[in-house]
């Protein structure tokens, strides 16, 4: 029982990070209508920037995260302005090729600046606590609480404010958004900023329990693709739920099946769910 509880908590931790990354991916999908392969590179940069602020500039963990959020958000916006915006009238394949190009470019930049080594991010919240038979570090609790907090804020922003609603409106009908007077350029910029910020938050929260290295985004972004396919492309509740489903499936699978196969679970889950419900769990009724 204790093992199960422990694994459920671990699932909640990784699920929180997956959900944050998948949310950014699904929001940008609403603008580009392709999955942004470069999203994993934003995640990686988020980890490195927080690490750099802490190690080289001796900043507090939270201040470092804030700087990382703003910087990655800005890089994400530049990505939209410099690459995707000029391509807006071209075919989806050109977006995909461009996204892969950005991914390779940003990873090469990271290697150039920080080198190829694996790095550790030390956290001020490393002590372990035991609560009701579950042992965890404060860091893991911080991941869960912060991620849920961020998601609640994001939800309120998207549903309750005019500015947030423009993101949803544009995803549902781009010309319809133009015709009610929404500036679609501004919405695209805003969406990319939010997506970059979410990736930076996810990476900064999870880096202390993982490692920071140039390829750290690969597996995360592949899993985020699985999540938004399972949850339905562009669906926000789907991205959140999909993230947690995958988190739980992985941590429970690692304990009861085999830790070696942990990373394959996402893809087995993908095949299983798509065989039963090819349109995804939360697929939209109308485009």
């Amino acid at each position, binding site marked *: 029982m204790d093992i199960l509880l422990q694994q459920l908590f671990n699932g909640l931790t990784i699920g929180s990070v997956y959900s944050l990354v998948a949310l950014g991916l699904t929001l940008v999908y609403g603008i580009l209508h392709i999955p942004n392969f470069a999203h994993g590179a934003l995640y990686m940069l988020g980890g490195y920037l927080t690490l750099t602020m802490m190690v080289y500039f001796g900043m507090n963990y939270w201040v470092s995260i804030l700087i990382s959020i703003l910087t990655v958000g800005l890089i994400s916006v530049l990505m939209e302005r410099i690459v995707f915006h000029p391509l807006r009238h071209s075919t989806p394949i050109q977006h995909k090729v461009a996204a892969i190009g950005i991914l390779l470019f940003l990873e090469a930049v990271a290697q150039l600046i920080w080198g190829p080594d694996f790095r550790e991010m030390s956290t001020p919240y490393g002590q372990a606590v035991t609560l009701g038979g579950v042992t965890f570090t404060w860091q893991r609790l911080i991941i869960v609480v912060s991620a849920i907090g961020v998601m609640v804020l994001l939800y309120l922003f998207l549903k309750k404010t005019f500015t947030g609603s423009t993101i949803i409106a544009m995803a*549902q009908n781009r010309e319809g958004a*133009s*015709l*009610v*007077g929404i500036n679609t350029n501004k919405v695209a910029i805003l969406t990319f900023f939010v997506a970059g910020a979410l990736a930076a938050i996810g990476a900064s929260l999870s880096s202390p329990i993982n490692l920071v290295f140039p390829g750290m985004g690969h597996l995360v972004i592949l899993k985020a693709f699985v999540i938004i396919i399972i949850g339905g492309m562009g669906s926000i509740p789907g991205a959140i739920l999909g993230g947690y489903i995958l988190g739980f499936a992985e941590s429970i699978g690692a304990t009861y099946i085999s830790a070696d196969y942990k990373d394959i679970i996402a893809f087995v889950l993908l095949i299983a769910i798509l065989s039963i419900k090819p349109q995804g769990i939360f697929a939209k009724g109308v485009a």
Partner: protein
Amino acid sequence: MLELRGATVNYGNFSAVQQADISVEEGDIVVLLGANGAGKSTTFRAISGLVRLVSGEILFKGDSIDGKSPDKIVQMGIVQCAEDRKLFPQMSVEQNLMMGAYVHRKNKKQIRKSLEEVYELFPILYDKRTNFAHSLSGGQQQMLAIGRALMSKPKVMLLDEPSTGLAPLVVEQMFKSIQQINNNGTTILLAEQNAKVALSIATKGYVYENGSIAVEGKPKELFSNEKVRKAYLGA
């Protein structure tokens, strides 16, 4: 109030609208008639800033508006109900209407008032306010599209074939609503294939043929024009 002078639009090598001259006075209901692909929708897209003119100009209250972005044009008071309605399918009826008031987002009081006016004009939208837009019938979706456009408090409303796919009884109701919107002070430019009903409420009409305006005049003149009768009135 709204004037097109020699407006020409090309899609690649294909010229969709050539040298169109249209003049809409304040308070008018002006009808654009013509077959599918004759250039009516393209004219609307050009006015809304969704496509650019290759030559000619579009004037609104005497100032040129071509080259302005679609959102600026809505802010200036020209709003379009597109033929395919362009609703937000996964938003509720009320959310769709609220998005329609986007240009007035700072003025909550006015939004409330506009919302009440729209519900008064189309009571069915009030009954369905929590339903998703995609779950509405064709007629209700058209009402929602018009209601959403009204939320921006337009000076000119462009209505692209509001009767498409609607039952005859609903069409009649739709035209009554359009007339009421006009009575409340909104100038209307209406594209229609249903010439008879459209001309019955119009103050002026233009007939498109292959991208150019072939005939123009008062409804009476168009009714008596041999060519127009043959092509659009079936008599």
